Protein backbone atom coordinates (compact mmCIF):
# COMPACT_ATOMS: atom_id res chain seq x y z
CA UNK A 1 0.00 0.00 0.00
CA UNK A 2 1.32 3.40 -0.85
CA UNK A 3 0.32 4.73 2.50
CA UNK A 4 2.53 2.25 4.35
CA UNK A 5 5.34 3.95 6.15
CA UNK A 6 8.71 2.98 4.82
CA UNK A 7 9.92 1.31 7.99
CA UNK A 8 6.84 -0.58 9.02
CA UNK A 9 6.01 -2.16 5.68
CA UNK A 10 9.25 -4.14 5.14
CA UNK A 11 9.35 -5.31 8.73
CA UNK A 12 5.75 -6.46 8.63
CA UNK A 13 6.30 -8.14 5.32
CA UNK A 14 9.36 -9.98 6.47
CA UNK A 15 7.70 -10.93 9.71
CA UNK A 16 4.87 -12.72 8.08
CA UNK A 17 6.26 -13.39 4.62
CA UNK A 18 3.31 -11.75 3.00
CA UNK A 19 3.45 -9.68 -0.10
CA UNK A 20 3.87 -6.05 0.72
CA UNK A 21 0.77 -5.45 -1.35
CA UNK A 22 -1.67 -6.88 1.13
CA UNK A 23 -3.98 -8.21 -1.49
CA UNK A 24 -7.54 -8.69 -0.57
CA UNK A 25 -8.08 -11.45 -3.01
CA UNK A 26 -11.55 -12.49 -2.50
CA UNK A 27 -12.96 -15.75 -2.48
CA UNK A 28 -15.75 -16.55 -4.65
CA UNK A 29 -18.84 -16.07 -2.97
CA UNK A 30 -21.56 -13.65 -2.77
CA UNK A 31 -21.32 -11.95 0.55
CA UNK A 32 -24.27 -13.37 2.32
CA UNK A 33 -24.90 -11.86 5.67
CA UNK A 34 -22.53 -13.27 8.14
CA UNK A 35 -23.93 -12.71 11.55
CA UNK A 36 -21.21 -12.88 14.09
CA UNK A 37 -23.50 -12.01 16.92
CA UNK A 38 -25.91 -14.81 16.10
CA UNK A 39 -26.51 -17.44 18.72
CA UNK A 40 -24.56 -20.61 18.07
CA UNK A 41 -26.46 -22.96 15.84
CA UNK A 42 -26.60 -26.30 17.61
CA UNK A 43 -26.53 -28.99 15.02
CA UNK A 44 -24.89 -32.37 14.55
CA UNK A 45 -21.45 -32.09 13.06
CA UNK A 46 -22.53 -33.96 9.96
CA UNK A 47 -24.52 -30.94 8.74
CA UNK A 48 -22.31 -28.94 6.47
CA UNK A 49 -23.07 -25.28 6.33
CA UNK A 50 -23.25 -23.95 2.84
CA UNK A 51 -20.70 -21.26 2.51
CA UNK A 52 -21.26 -18.97 -0.31
CA UNK A 53 -18.83 -16.26 -0.90
CA UNK A 54 -18.17 -13.65 -3.43
CA UNK A 55 -17.12 -15.26 -6.58
CA UNK A 56 -13.91 -16.69 -5.58
CA UNK A 57 -12.58 -19.76 -4.16
CA UNK A 58 -12.81 -19.58 -0.49
CA UNK A 59 -16.22 -19.86 0.81
CA UNK A 60 -17.30 -18.47 3.93
CA UNK A 61 -20.73 -17.44 4.07
CA UNK A 62 -23.31 -18.80 6.26
CA UNK A 63 -26.53 -18.95 4.37
CA UNK A 64 -29.38 -17.28 6.11
CA UNK A 65 -31.57 -20.28 5.56
CA UNK A 66 -29.62 -22.23 8.15
CA UNK A 67 -31.05 -20.55 11.19
CA UNK A 68 -34.71 -20.84 10.26
CA UNK A 69 -34.18 -24.46 9.22
CA UNK A 70 -32.68 -25.51 12.51
CA UNK A 71 -35.16 -23.59 14.57
CA UNK A 72 -38.07 -25.11 12.71
CA UNK A 73 -36.92 -28.65 13.36
CA UNK A 74 -37.97 -29.17 16.97
CA UNK A 75 -41.40 -27.61 16.43
CA UNK A 76 -43.23 -30.33 14.47
CA UNK A 77 -41.79 -33.12 16.61
CA UNK A 78 -44.09 -35.10 18.87
CA UNK A 79 -43.76 -34.87 22.64
CA UNK A 80 -41.84 -38.07 23.40
CA UNK A 81 -39.28 -37.11 20.79
CA UNK A 82 -38.95 -33.68 22.31
CA UNK A 83 -38.28 -35.14 25.76
CA UNK A 84 -35.64 -37.41 24.33
CA UNK A 85 -33.97 -34.53 22.53
CA UNK A 86 -33.79 -32.31 25.57
CA UNK A 87 -32.01 -35.00 27.52
CA UNK A 88 -29.35 -35.40 24.86
CA UNK A 89 -27.11 -32.44 25.49
CA UNK A 90 -25.33 -31.03 22.52
CA UNK A 91 -22.09 -29.45 23.74
CA UNK A 92 -22.48 -25.72 23.56
CA UNK A 93 -20.15 -24.11 21.14
CA UNK A 94 -18.35 -21.06 22.42
CA UNK A 95 -19.26 -17.89 20.62
CA UNK A 96 -15.84 -16.97 19.43
CA UNK A 97 -14.65 -15.93 16.06
CA UNK A 98 -11.18 -15.39 14.69
CA UNK A 99 -9.67 -13.78 11.65
CA UNK A 100 -7.04 -16.06 10.24
CA UNK A 101 -4.66 -15.77 7.28
CA UNK A 102 -4.47 -18.76 4.96
CA UNK A 103 -2.68 -18.53 1.66
CA UNK A 104 -2.41 -14.74 2.05
CA UNK A 105 -6.18 -14.42 2.24
CA UNK A 106 -8.03 -13.52 5.39
CA UNK A 107 -11.05 -15.44 6.59
CA UNK A 108 -13.45 -14.99 9.45
CA UNK A 109 -13.62 -18.35 11.15
CA UNK A 110 -16.08 -19.96 13.59
CA UNK A 111 -15.59 -23.23 15.41
CA UNK A 112 -17.69 -25.96 13.84
CA UNK A 113 -17.96 -24.40 10.40
CA UNK A 114 -15.96 -25.07 7.31
CA UNK A 115 -14.20 -22.84 4.84
CA UNK A 116 -12.78 -23.42 1.40
CA UNK A 117 -9.22 -22.26 0.93
CA UNK A 118 -6.56 -22.54 -1.71
CA UNK A 119 -5.27 -26.06 -2.15
CA UNK A 120 -2.84 -26.89 0.65
CA UNK A 121 -0.03 -28.95 -0.74
CA UNK A 122 0.74 -32.28 0.80
CA UNK A 123 -2.40 -32.46 2.89
CA UNK A 124 -4.69 -35.44 3.02
CA UNK A 125 -8.16 -35.90 4.48
CA UNK A 126 -8.42 -35.98 8.28
CA UNK A 127 -5.17 -34.12 8.80
CA UNK A 128 -5.07 -31.89 11.84
CA UNK A 129 -3.88 -28.39 11.20
CA UNK A 130 -2.95 -25.51 13.44
CA UNK A 131 -3.17 -22.04 11.99
CA UNK A 132 -0.93 -19.55 13.72
CA UNK A 133 -1.50 -16.35 11.85
CA UNK A 134 -4.46 -15.13 13.84
CA UNK A 135 -5.10 -11.43 13.35
CA UNK A 136 -8.12 -10.96 15.56
CA UNK A 137 -10.11 -12.98 18.06
CA UNK A 138 -13.53 -11.83 19.13
CA UNK A 139 -15.93 -13.01 21.77
CA UNK A 140 -19.27 -11.62 22.78
CA UNK A 141 -17.82 -9.12 25.19
CA UNK A 142 -14.26 -8.49 24.15
CA UNK A 143 -11.89 -8.55 21.24
CA UNK A 144 -8.25 -9.46 21.16
CA UNK A 145 -6.59 -7.35 18.51
CA UNK A 146 -3.35 -8.59 17.06
CA UNK A 147 -0.46 -6.26 16.31
CA UNK A 148 -0.13 -7.75 13.84
CA UNK A 149 -0.74 -11.23 15.24
CA UNK A 150 -2.45 -12.25 18.46
CA UNK A 151 0.36 -13.87 20.45
CA UNK A 152 0.00 -17.59 21.17
CA UNK A 153 -3.35 -17.79 19.49
CA UNK A 154 -4.00 -20.86 17.38
CA UNK A 155 -6.90 -22.06 15.33
CA UNK A 156 -7.25 -25.82 15.15
CA UNK A 157 -8.74 -27.30 12.05
CA UNK A 158 -9.21 -30.59 10.29
CA UNK A 159 -8.84 -31.04 6.56
CA UNK A 160 -11.96 -32.53 5.13
CA UNK A 161 -11.55 -32.72 1.43
CA UNK A 162 -9.32 -31.63 -1.42
CA UNK A 163 -11.52 -30.74 -4.32
CA UNK A 164 -11.96 -28.41 -7.23
CA UNK A 165 -13.97 -25.26 -7.58
CA UNK A 166 -16.87 -24.88 -9.92
CA UNK A 167 -15.80 -24.66 -13.53
CA UNK A 168 -15.17 -21.22 -14.89
CA UNK A 169 -15.26 -20.71 -18.65
CA UNK A 170 -12.43 -18.51 -19.83
CA UNK A 171 -13.62 -17.25 -23.20
CA UNK A 172 -11.28 -15.03 -25.16
CA UNK A 173 -12.72 -13.31 -28.17
CA UNK A 174 -11.65 -10.57 -30.54
CA UNK A 175 -14.32 -9.30 -32.83
CA UNK A 176 -13.79 -9.16 -36.59
CA UNK A 177 -10.43 -10.86 -36.22
CA UNK A 178 -11.59 -14.49 -36.14
CA UNK A 179 -10.01 -15.14 -32.78
CA UNK A 180 -11.78 -17.08 -30.11
CA UNK A 181 -10.51 -19.42 -27.44
CA UNK A 182 -12.72 -21.43 -25.12
CA UNK A 183 -10.92 -22.71 -22.02
CA UNK A 184 -12.41 -24.26 -18.92
CA UNK A 185 -10.75 -23.89 -15.56
CA UNK A 186 -11.29 -25.49 -12.18
CA UNK A 187 -9.19 -24.12 -9.38
CA UNK A 188 -8.12 -26.69 -6.79
CA UNK A 189 -9.29 -25.98 -3.26
CA UNK A 190 -9.30 -27.54 0.17
CA UNK A 191 -12.20 -27.72 2.56
CA UNK A 192 -11.22 -27.21 6.16
CA UNK A 193 -13.44 -27.61 9.19
CA UNK A 194 -12.56 -25.48 12.16
CA UNK A 195 -12.56 -27.32 15.45
CA UNK A 196 -11.43 -24.73 17.94
CA UNK A 197 -9.81 -21.42 18.71
CA UNK A 198 -7.32 -21.42 21.58
CA UNK A 199 -4.55 -19.52 23.20
CA UNK A 200 -5.95 -16.02 23.06
CA UNK A 201 -6.93 -15.61 26.70
CA UNK A 202 -3.61 -14.20 27.86
CA UNK A 203 -3.36 -11.41 25.33
CA UNK A 204 -4.56 -7.90 26.09
CA UNK A 205 -8.25 -7.63 25.44
CA UNK A 206 -10.40 -4.69 24.56
CA UNK A 207 -13.80 -4.74 26.16
CA UNK A 208 -16.99 -2.84 25.67
CA UNK A 209 -16.57 -0.93 28.91
CA UNK A 210 -13.55 0.89 27.64
CA UNK A 211 -15.45 2.37 24.69
Amino acid sequence: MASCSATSAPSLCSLLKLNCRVSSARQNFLLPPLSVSRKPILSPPSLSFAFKKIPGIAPRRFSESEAPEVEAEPVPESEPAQIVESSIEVPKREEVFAVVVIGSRQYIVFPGRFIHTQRLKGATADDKIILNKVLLVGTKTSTYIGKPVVPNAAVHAVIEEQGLNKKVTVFKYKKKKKYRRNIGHRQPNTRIRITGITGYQDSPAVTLDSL
Partner: protein
Amino acid sequence: MTRIRQGYIARRRRAKIRLFASSFRGAHSRLTRTIIQQRIRALVSSHRDRDRQKRDFRRLWITRINAVIRESGVSYSYSRFIHNLYKRQLLLNRKILAQIAIFNRNCLYMISNEIIK
Protein backbone atom coordinates in the same frame (compact mmCIF):
# COMPACT_ATOMS: atom_id res chain seq x y z
CA MET B 1 -19.05 -40.11 -52.96
CA THR B 2 -22.27 -41.18 -51.36
CA ARG B 3 -24.63 -38.53 -50.20
CA ILE B 4 -24.51 -37.92 -46.43
CA ARG B 5 -27.32 -36.25 -44.65
CA GLN B 6 -26.34 -33.81 -41.96
CA GLY B 7 -28.63 -35.48 -39.48
CA TYR B 8 -28.56 -34.26 -35.91
CA ILE B 9 -24.98 -33.04 -35.70
CA ALA B 10 -25.67 -29.35 -35.96
CA ARG B 11 -28.77 -29.64 -33.80
CA ARG B 12 -26.80 -31.18 -30.95
CA ARG B 13 -24.22 -28.44 -31.10
CA ARG B 14 -26.83 -25.74 -31.10
CA ALA B 15 -28.76 -27.40 -28.28
CA LYS B 16 -25.82 -26.94 -25.92
CA ILE B 17 -25.56 -23.29 -26.81
CA ARG B 18 -29.29 -22.89 -26.44
CA LEU B 19 -29.13 -24.36 -22.97
CA PHE B 20 -26.56 -21.76 -22.01
CA ALA B 21 -28.83 -18.94 -23.14
CA SER B 22 -32.04 -20.49 -21.87
CA SER B 23 -32.65 -17.74 -19.33
CA PHE B 24 -32.09 -14.79 -21.64
CA ARG B 25 -34.81 -12.35 -22.45
CA GLY B 26 -37.00 -12.42 -25.53
CA ALA B 27 -35.45 -13.35 -28.86
CA HIS B 28 -32.07 -13.85 -27.18
CA SER B 29 -33.24 -17.21 -25.93
CA ARG B 30 -35.33 -18.25 -28.92
CA LEU B 31 -33.58 -17.49 -32.21
CA THR B 32 -30.54 -19.66 -32.96
CA ARG B 33 -28.30 -17.12 -34.64
CA THR B 34 -29.07 -14.53 -31.98
CA ILE B 35 -28.41 -17.09 -29.28
CA ILE B 36 -24.94 -17.76 -30.62
CA GLN B 37 -24.07 -14.08 -30.58
CA GLN B 38 -25.50 -13.49 -27.13
CA ARG B 39 -23.64 -16.43 -25.70
CA ILE B 40 -20.37 -14.97 -26.95
CA ARG B 41 -21.17 -11.60 -25.43
CA ALA B 42 -22.14 -13.19 -22.13
CA LEU B 43 -18.95 -15.20 -21.86
CA VAL B 44 -16.80 -12.22 -22.78
CA SER B 45 -18.55 -10.10 -20.15
CA SER B 46 -18.07 -12.70 -17.47
CA HIS B 47 -14.38 -13.02 -18.32
CA ARG B 48 -13.86 -9.27 -18.20
CA ASP B 49 -15.96 -8.82 -15.10
CA ARG B 50 -14.17 -11.48 -13.16
CA ASP B 51 -11.27 -9.06 -13.08
CA ARG B 52 -13.52 -6.10 -12.41
CA GLN B 53 -15.13 -8.00 -9.56
CA LYS B 54 -11.97 -7.72 -7.51
CA ARG B 55 -11.96 -3.97 -8.00
CA ASP B 56 -15.68 -3.59 -7.43
CA PHE B 57 -15.72 -5.41 -4.16
CA ARG B 58 -12.77 -3.46 -2.85
CA ARG B 59 -14.62 -0.25 -3.64
CA LEU B 60 -17.68 -1.57 -1.84
CA TRP B 61 -15.71 -2.49 1.24
CA ILE B 62 -14.02 0.88 1.35
CA THR B 63 -17.35 2.66 1.08
CA ARG B 64 -18.82 0.57 3.85
CA ILE B 65 -15.87 1.08 6.17
CA ASN B 66 -15.94 4.79 5.42
CA ALA B 67 -19.61 5.02 6.32
CA VAL B 68 -19.19 3.31 9.65
CA ILE B 69 -16.00 5.12 10.60
CA ARG B 70 -17.41 8.55 9.94
CA GLU B 71 -20.06 8.00 12.57
CA SER B 72 -17.58 7.94 15.37
CA GLY B 73 -16.18 11.33 16.10
CA VAL B 74 -15.75 14.57 14.26
CA SER B 75 -13.41 14.66 11.27
CA TYR B 76 -12.57 11.00 11.40
CA SER B 77 -12.48 9.36 8.02
CA TYR B 78 -11.52 6.21 6.18
CA SER B 79 -8.17 7.62 5.14
CA ARG B 80 -7.19 8.44 8.70
CA PHE B 81 -8.45 5.10 9.89
CA ILE B 82 -6.33 3.22 7.39
CA HIS B 83 -3.33 5.39 8.20
CA ASN B 84 -3.71 4.57 11.87
CA LEU B 85 -4.17 0.92 11.02
CA TYR B 86 -0.82 0.84 9.32
CA LYS B 87 0.85 2.90 12.01
CA ARG B 88 -0.25 0.38 14.62
CA GLN B 89 0.82 -2.53 12.46
CA LEU B 90 -2.53 -4.21 12.11
CA LEU B 91 -2.93 -6.45 9.12
CA LEU B 92 -6.68 -6.73 8.80
CA ASN B 93 -7.78 -6.19 5.24
CA ARG B 94 -10.74 -4.22 3.99
CA LYS B 95 -12.88 -7.25 3.38
CA ILE B 96 -12.69 -8.35 6.98
CA LEU B 97 -13.15 -4.83 8.26
CA ALA B 98 -16.26 -4.38 6.16
CA GLN B 99 -17.68 -7.66 7.41
CA ILE B 100 -16.99 -6.72 10.99
CA ALA B 101 -18.51 -3.30 10.40
CA ILE B 102 -21.77 -4.86 9.35
CA PHE B 103 -22.16 -7.71 11.75
CA ASN B 104 -20.21 -6.78 14.83
CA ARG B 105 -20.04 -3.04 14.84
CA ASN B 106 -18.87 -2.87 18.45
CA CYS B 107 -15.82 -4.83 17.44
CA LEU B 108 -14.96 -2.25 14.82
CA TYR B 109 -15.40 0.57 17.31
CA MET B 110 -13.07 -1.27 19.66
CA ILE B 111 -10.49 -1.59 16.90
CA SER B 112 -10.71 2.08 15.95
CA ASN B 113 -10.38 3.15 19.58
CA GLU B 114 -7.35 0.97 20.02
CA ILE B 115 -5.79 2.55 16.98
CA ILE B 116 -6.48 6.16 17.84
CA LYS B 117 -4.71 5.96 21.20
